[in-house]
């Protein structure tokens, strides 16, 4: 154990942290929106929508993320003339955007299943009650269905956020130098796997710890009905 070396490693790995967080935040945000659309299609899209979403989820959950990333990064490069014509080459040329696209498509499949479960958990009575008050359409969805669905889905969603944070490590395989990319390079240079592993692992553990606490706060904030009421009102 070489403390000086570990401190140096820590400082180097820290420079990769913004990229890791950026990758995770971008793909979780975009994946969340995509997942919302997909789960809406699954619920209201009839048999065609259900079939499409089931196929999407099957493909993206059944195959490794790394292969999906390779397909997008290396595979789409094969269609360079076509992509250049469409003006999309600027996106697919960059490993960063390819990683974001792969992570987004992948997390959307998992997240849509979580959202679908949340939407199914909204009981018919709650919808009926809202209708009895005269709510319908987007208002009913925004005020009643969505908040309840989010509340149900949140614990599982927290797991997915953490899985995504860890999945950004795969971006290092397509030449992105985030925390794991830097760690891999350091290990290959110094051959001191154990020290680098401890430092990199500690960084990831610290982030996931913060994320789980954050999720707990959001959960607390979203479920006022389960909180203990102040004794003076009782």
């Amino acid at each position: 154990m070489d403390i000086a070396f570990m401190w140096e490693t820590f400082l180097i790995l820290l420079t990769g942290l913004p990229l890791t967080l950026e990758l995770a935040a971008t793909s979780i945000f975009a994946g969340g929106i995509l997942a919302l659309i997909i789960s809406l299609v699954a619920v209201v899209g009839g048999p065609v929508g259900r079939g499409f979403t089931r196929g999407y989820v099957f493909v993206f959950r059944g195959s490794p993320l790394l292969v999906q990333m390779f397909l997008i990064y290396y595979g789409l490069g094969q269609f360079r003339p076509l992509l250049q014509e469409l003006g999309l080459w600027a996106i697919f040329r960059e490993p960063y955007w390819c990683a974001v696209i792969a992570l987004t498509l992948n997390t959307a499949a998992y997240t849509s299943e979580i959202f679908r479960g949340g939407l199914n958990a909204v009981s018919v009575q709650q919808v009926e009650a809202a209708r009895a008050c005269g709510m319908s359409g987007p208002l009913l969805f925004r005020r009643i269905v969505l908040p309840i669905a989010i509340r149900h889905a949140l614990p599982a969603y927290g797991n997915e956020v953490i899985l995504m944070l860890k999945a950004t490590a795969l971006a290092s395989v397509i030449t992105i130098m985030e925390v794991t990319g830097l760690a891999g390079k350091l290990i290959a240079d110094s051959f001191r796997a154990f020290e680098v592993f401890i430092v990199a692992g500690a960084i990831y553990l610290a982030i996931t710890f913060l994320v789980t606490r954050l999720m707990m706060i959001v959960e607390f904030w979203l479920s006022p009905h389960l909180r203990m009421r102040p004794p003076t009102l009782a």
Partner: protein
Amino acid sequence: MELIDRYLALVGFGETGWGTLLLSASAMTLGVSICGFLAGTILGSVVTFMKLSRYIVLRWLADAYTTILRGVPDLLVIYLFYFGGSAFLGYLGGLFGYQGFIGMPAFLTGTLALGVVSAAYQSEVFRGAFKSVASGELEAASAVGMRPWPKFRRIVAPLVLRYAIPGLGNTWQLVLKESALISITGLVELLRQSQIAAGSTRRPFEFYLTAIVLYLVITWASSIAFRHLETRTMRGTRSSL
């Protein structure tokens, strides 16, 4: 049609031979996944016993194991075993005056890394299953005079296995997909073979798409197998619904 013909000429079983190679690489993916999963079951059982132990230090160690291994990217664990294992073997060799070690065997690295990671998940599955064993069953076993070991072997273990199978199915799918990461060690499994093929033909799209389809076939087949196993082990139980 022309597209399909061109695809088959590239990936099929004709003179190029990539189809055969991809299939044998799929077998390698299955092999390293099965070995990793079994290693994870063995290590996971040990961790489970530690979690259920009456000694707080063992419980604490086991919880730390699960937290760390689930909180760290699996790619890092693979790096640790790949580079660290080689350094360790080299050091051991040095102790005995042998300088010839170059690297860890890739298959062993894969098995160890997948085993260590999946043990963290499997130990949680087993712990949940242990909690599901009804206390009445344990009392009944004690009442007919079973001693601890026969009680464990004939009552607890079969019940735990029965409750654990759905969770083990999830873990198996996880290991199967994670085995693609072993390609960085140079083990020629499905992803690595596709990389080789994509590189030498300069047709990455076709080969990575084929790899995805082959992975889907494997995960789909194993989900069927696990569902079959589940219904078999649940035979003789009445549904509570």
